[in-house]
Structures are given as C-alpha cells and as structure tokens.
C-alpha cells in the first residue's frame, strides 16, 4: 500500500472516531509520524482533490478520497484476516501495520482468494479496536476460553 493510501485510510478512520474532520495531530499519531510530515502529505492529498483541510478544524476526505480510503481499508482487512486466520498470528494488528507498506494492492487481492471475507467489508472494520469486528469477536472468544 503506498503512502498516500495509508494516509487516506488513517484520515478515514480518525474521521469515523472523531465523527467529523480529523485533526492533523490525530492523523500523525495514527501513522506514528511527525505533525510536520502529516501536514505535508495532507497538502499533497488536497492538491490531488482527495482531501480538504480547514484551518482549526482538520482534514476531511472528498468523495474521491473516501472511495480510495475504503479500498485501502479493504486491503488492510485482507492483510489482517490473512495474518489472523491463515498464519494464525496473535499480534495481527501490529504485524498488519508493519507489513502494509510492503503489501501491494494486487498482492492483497490475490490473498483475498483464500480468505472468507464479509460482503459488508470494509464497513465491518471497527476503528476503535483497529480490526474487523468479526475478527475482534473471534479474538474475544479465544480470550474468554
């Protein structure tokens, strides 16, 4: 996933949690980058018509930005699901985060041929738990066991 898509996904998820524009600080925190780097990339997304930044309020995705962010989120779900269900990785969240930059969309699509993903994806992704709600459910059951 390229850097722009990682930012779009992060803004989309922060907007979902904050229920409004995403503050630059929250986007920077989500991506573990400096606010200056986040500002610079948000400027580039604005130039490409993918986001709009309003001073003192934050950044919101445009319709085109939302489409790209949802695609990126679907691919991220595939990576999480693949790690959790196929490779049985317990720390699938942190591993997905460390691998997403190296996993291209085409690779995620190929991995998707062996994953049983819900048709509602990516709406089932829960920004609070940073995972698909179905994955979080299974995880909770394992913890309860």
């Amino acid at each position, binding site marked *: 996933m390229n850097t722009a898509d990682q930012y779009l996904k992060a803004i989309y998820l922060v907007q979902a949690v904050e229920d409004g524009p995403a503050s630059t600080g929250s986007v920077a925190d989500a991506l*573990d980058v400096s606010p200056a780097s986040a500002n610079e990339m948000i400027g580039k997304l604005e130039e490409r018509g993918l986001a709009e930044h309003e001073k003192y309020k934050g950044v919101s995705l445009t319709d085109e930005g939302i489409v790209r962010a949802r695609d990126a989120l679907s691919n991220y779900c595939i990576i999480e699901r*693949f790690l959790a269900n196929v*490779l049985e990785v317990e720390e699938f969240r942190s591993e997905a985060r460390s*691998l997403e*930059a*190296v996993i*291209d969309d*085409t690779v995620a699509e190929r991995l998707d041929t062996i994953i049983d993903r819900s048709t509602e994806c990516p709406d089932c992704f829960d920004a609070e738990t940073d995972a698909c709600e179905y994955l979080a459910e299974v995880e909770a059951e394992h913890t309860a066991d």
Partner: protein
Amino acid sequence: MSVGQRVTSDHQLARLLQIGVVLEEVVEARSTHHHREMEDEFDAELDTLLREAAAESAEHRERLEELIAELDAESVSYEEIEALVEAQYGKTKPEDFDGVLYDQLCNEETAYKFYDDLIGAIEGSDSSFSVDRERVLDTLRSIRAEEAEGVEEVTAVMERR
C-alpha cells in the same frame, strides 16, 4: 504504523517470505484446480503452460522455505493453502480459457510485484539479518526474473489466441 517500505527485522523478513510461499502455493493450487475442472477442454499449449507454472511455483516455494527455516520460522503447508483455495474456488474460478489465462497472468504479475517490492524494502533498509542479506537478495532477484519471464510467456500465449 510504519509509513514507507523497509524490512528491518528477521521476524518481518520471515513473515514476508511466508507470504511469498503462500502466493506460490495459491498459484500451484489454482492451477491444479483449473486442470481438474477443465482438463478435457485444455489444449496442449495451455496444459503445458499451467503444468510448468505449477512446477516453477513449487520450486520457488522450496527456495523460500530454505530461507524461512534459516530464520528459525515455520513455513505454511501446501495442504493448508490448497484447502483454503478449494473452499473459495467456487467464488473465484475463471469461467473459460481466457479466464484461466487471465488468472495465470494475474498470478505472475502479482508474484513479480511482490518480489519487486520486497527486494526494494530490503535494499531500503540497512538492517542485518541472521541469514546473509546478499543471499536473500540473490534468491529473490532470481525468482523475480523468472516471474518476469512468466508474465512474458502468458502474454505471448494470450496474443497468439
């Protein structure tokens, strides 16, 4: 979240090599399924193309597995991936020869892109691994070259038809 492509640890490298193994296993298993579903309708050219692709994937898998073992990690069994391919095959199977060729082209292109990104991510990092870095890169570069040839072969067959 890490923005930017870099491989920085044995663990991350092993995980990415495991993904490479799975991609190769998907190629092999899907090719086997195409044969099972449509063998009677395949001509010699398509039959050879798929058989050679499956054999090449098996060989790539073995080379990746050697590195994974040296990183003290485990590979993913072919039987497990074959079962997953089988479970989802109904939803993803190609409908005709063109579909099979297109599927094979996607396999080769995806594998090429994966190895290309992985090589870039290793080259972009100055981390050392418990396996010789140059050996890892040589192995991956050689597999990437074979995937590039695979893309050309499938494209040539598609153009002839």
